[in-house]
């Protein structure tokens, strides 16, 4: 623990603040980054879905790009971003409305990390099994 010029000790997260340093700050940063990313994806996603009004062939062609290995991996990232944004959003609501929320915000952050991993590991398997099969599989 270092000491600054005023002689106060610098903690990772100063007492009484939520967003300066530590878990409170990094979840805030991640919430913004995932939020902006999801907003831009949403624009693209409404535009690609709008192709159902052009023709079935046009829609099937654009959806085919979603099935390619690289875009398939991006979809895993998309689901990961949505999951974090959703869970951290619930954490923010609990901090705001639950009396003990601010006290347990750090534990909630690590809870989010645990649940996120618990879902993403099988999620990764089910989302990419076709791609993995197509690249490495010998049969089917």
């Amino acid at each position, binding site marked *: 623990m270092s000491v600054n010029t005023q002689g106060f000790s610098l903690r990772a997260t100063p007492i009484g603040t939520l967003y300066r340093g530590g878990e409170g700050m990094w979840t805030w940063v991640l919430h913004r980054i995932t939020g902006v990313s999801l907003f831009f994806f949403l624009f693209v996603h*409404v535009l690609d879905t709008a192709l159902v009004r052009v023709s079935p*062939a046009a829609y099937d062609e654009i959806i085919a790009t979603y099935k390619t290995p690289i875009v398939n991996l991006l979809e895993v990232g998309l*689901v990961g971003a949505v999951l974090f944004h959703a869970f951290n959003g619930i954490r923010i609501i609990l901090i705001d409305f639950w009396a003990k929320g601010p006290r347990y915000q750090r534990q909630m952050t690590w809870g989010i990390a645990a649940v996120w991993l618990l879902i993403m590991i099988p999620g990764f398997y089910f989302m990419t099994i076709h791609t993995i099969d197509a690249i490495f599989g010998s049969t089917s």
Partner: protein
Amino acid sequence: MSTAVLAPRSDSRNKQRSNFELYGWLFMRISGLILVFLVLGHLVIMNILDGGVQRINFAFVAGRWASPFWQVWDLSMLWLALTHGGNGMRTIINDYAERDQTRFWLKMLLYVSTTFIIVLGTLVIFTFDVSIG
């Protein structure tokens, strides 16, 4: 003797303050909570169950939008996600764009493009035609 000092909290700035940001703050929490269910349900169905994205095509979309349940689901998701995301982007522009002009035009661009996407998506859901091919 009259005084030039106004009573506390009575200056004109306070009178003109609106609760817009308070309602925005509340809207992010309510819409966010609903979106957790709508979007996670959407992702589980579209990306994980039964082959995930590999089975999606025009026929799959047609099958889903034959049901009013999924039409309402997708329409709610469209409106809530874009207003929730739009308000988030508004906050971020207000935070990082320092010049008044930059802030104003970035927000105009945001409002116009977001409105366009909401209207387009709504039209797509309401005018979907299975026999278009």
